[in-house]
């Protein structure tokens, strides 16, 4: 946990860009651009992991960076695009909360995250920058899940949250042990596949992937 890493300009640039990519998802109404922004975000995460890897000299982090690049920046976006193409879903996203309010709420969430993390004194000043970005990602991911109607966007929201935690793990502890990281990648990949299967099923039975229709089981 050398403080130098997180203070270095390149790290701050990457983390700032990750936040920007999150806002690209928040501010877009087209499914493809959301998926593309997610791909960019994952690519930036891989960059962050590489930078930390270089400065700490841990081989594990290179492996993690490579896996992020392959799984999160390539395979998962590809799965998304496959789903969108196969179920011929309308390319526009239906929203519960409009674009401009979404962006404002996103901004507020970032500010709150920064204040919350600042108040935890045990974390070094510089790594708290990365940690607050990670908290922002988690909260914006949650917000995306509840404010978008399409089932695909809920899936994307979970992945954004997961990316946020990944950033958090790197900034707090230079990454979890390799075995655990591998397990998490495995779970994320299988999870995306199974959610994909579920989305196909939802589309087949309800003839839409709007989660509005999923309101029958109550009480």
């Amino acid at each position, binding site marked *: 946990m050398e403080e130098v890493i997180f203070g270095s300009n390149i790290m701050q640039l990457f983390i700032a860009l990750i936040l920007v990519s999150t806002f690209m998802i928040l501010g877009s109404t087209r499914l493809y651009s959301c998926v593309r922004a997610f791909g960019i975000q994952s690519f930036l995460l891989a960059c962050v992991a590489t930078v930390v890897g270089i400065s700490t000299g841990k081989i594990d982090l290179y492996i993690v960076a490579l896996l992020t690049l392959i799984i999160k920046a390539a395979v998962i976006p590809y799965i998304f695009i496959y789903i969108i193409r196969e179920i011929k879903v309308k390319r526009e996203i239906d929203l519960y909360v409009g674009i401009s309010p979404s962006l404002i709420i996103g901004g507020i969430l970032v500010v709150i995250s920064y204040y919350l993390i600042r108040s*935890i004194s*045990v974390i070094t000043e510089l790594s708290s920058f990365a940690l607050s970005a990670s908290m922002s990602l*988690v909260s914006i991911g*949650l917000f995306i*899940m509840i404010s978008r109607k399409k*089932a695909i966007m*809920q899936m994307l929201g*979970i992945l954004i*949250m*997961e990316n946020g*935690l990944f950033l*958090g*793990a790197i900034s*707090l*502890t*230079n990454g*979890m*042990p*390799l*075995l*655990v990281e591998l*397990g*998490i990648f*495995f*779970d994320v990949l*299988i*999870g995306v596949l*199974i*959610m994909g*299967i*579920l989305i196909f*099923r*939802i589309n*087949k*039975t*309800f003839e839409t992937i709007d*989660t509005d229709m*999923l309101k*029958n*089981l109550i*009480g």
Partner: protein
Amino acid sequence: MIEYLLLAPLLTSILCFFSRTKKQVETISVSGSIITLLLGLTLVVDVYKHEVIVTWQNALFADAFSAYIVLIVSIVGFVASLYSVGYMGHEHKHGIIDDKKLRLYYSLFHIFMFTMLLVGVTNNLGLWIAIEMTTLVSALLMILYSRKSSIEAAWKYMIICTVGITFALFGTILTYFAAVNILGETGDALNWTSLIAVADQFDPTIMKLAFIFILIGYGTKAGLAPMHTWLPDAHSEAPTPVSALLSGVLLNCAMYGIIRFYTIATKSTGEAFTSNLLIIFGLLSLGIAVPFILLQEDYKRLLAYSSVEHMGIIALGIGFGGVFGIFGAILHMFNHAMTKSLMFFGAGNILLKHETKEIFNISGVVKTMPVTGTMFVVGTLAITGSPPFSIFISEFTILAAGFSNGHIGAAVLFLLFIIMIFAGFFNNVSRMVFGNPKPGIEKGDMSRWTLVAMGILMVFIIVLGVYIPTPFYDMIMRVVEIVR
């Protein structure tokens, strides 16, 4: 040893997938689950002799608590596989599922078993990975029927639990951070065996934060209110044998995660913080279950809400603390697993016969299905905590712990809630089991497989209500020592 235990369900699953006929797949499944059970029992005996077993470069381990979870998983898994033969066989005969789905069902069933066993024997905070895997597999089991409602339930289950589990991952990262500060960056810094030794030196602020995230995260999976919303949907829409596994075992696995972290967190934060949180969530779960049980119209959902209640009771037991509280909670995990599985099996038989889940449309089960009906009534008495059945013992122990450890208010509320739940539950069930049968319902019980499965569980419920065998008692006491 542990490797073989994990290998058995995996191999069974693969064999099930490639089998040809219905007969074959059933034989493989039942014999596979018998082997798993035997290996599970061997592990329990081994742990009894050696205290702690560690293998596979420290990745797998078993202490008394792991062995206890393995015991529950393998027993319920075994009876559920027996029950599956009867239940899925009936659905197969009536054309609800075809050969392909039957094979898929059995192979997923055993993978599900594998993931739950893995939760028990992971020597690592990477427990997270195993718990997430259980969600993935069970979501697939839920969409076995392509009904609208089961797909809705599966989606909600998947989304809510994955988000919950994500929070638990954050808690895990925080714990790892606290551990790294003491142990340095080694792969061991996430292992129980090394964590427990230094847990008292962890930063209390971080551990408090971590425990909150863990409790919310795994609490979602364990069905603690107010994160329980996926539970009634999932438990009522899954195939019945799977409902029994979800309710009896999976919830316990998530609870196991919480209790493990409770042990670590308590060492640095002090008991008051963690205990109070558990008591609050426990009481909330009990309280929320009350109105839903009183006014329930669907009997599988009734059982699901009762699971919320019982998870609340376990959380309360741990929260009350002391030897008695924890002893009660640990014993309750076992008792609840057995009794709730019995109830779901009974409900499954009723469902097969009447083809409806509405309580209003069913009556006279005791007359049409004497064996199922009788066991269902006994199960109802047991699950609501009446003597002389096993749950009475564990609930009473927890209650006593509440009073003796000074949580008078919580204990009184607890008592009040379980009395109301008793009334509501019994009222609903009595409408189903007594009275005259609805016209058009033929007499006769379901297949013998289902009755044997229920009978085995019945033995546990009655015997443990009267006395606790010494080896079993010793085992629980060891678990209590680990948890405290």
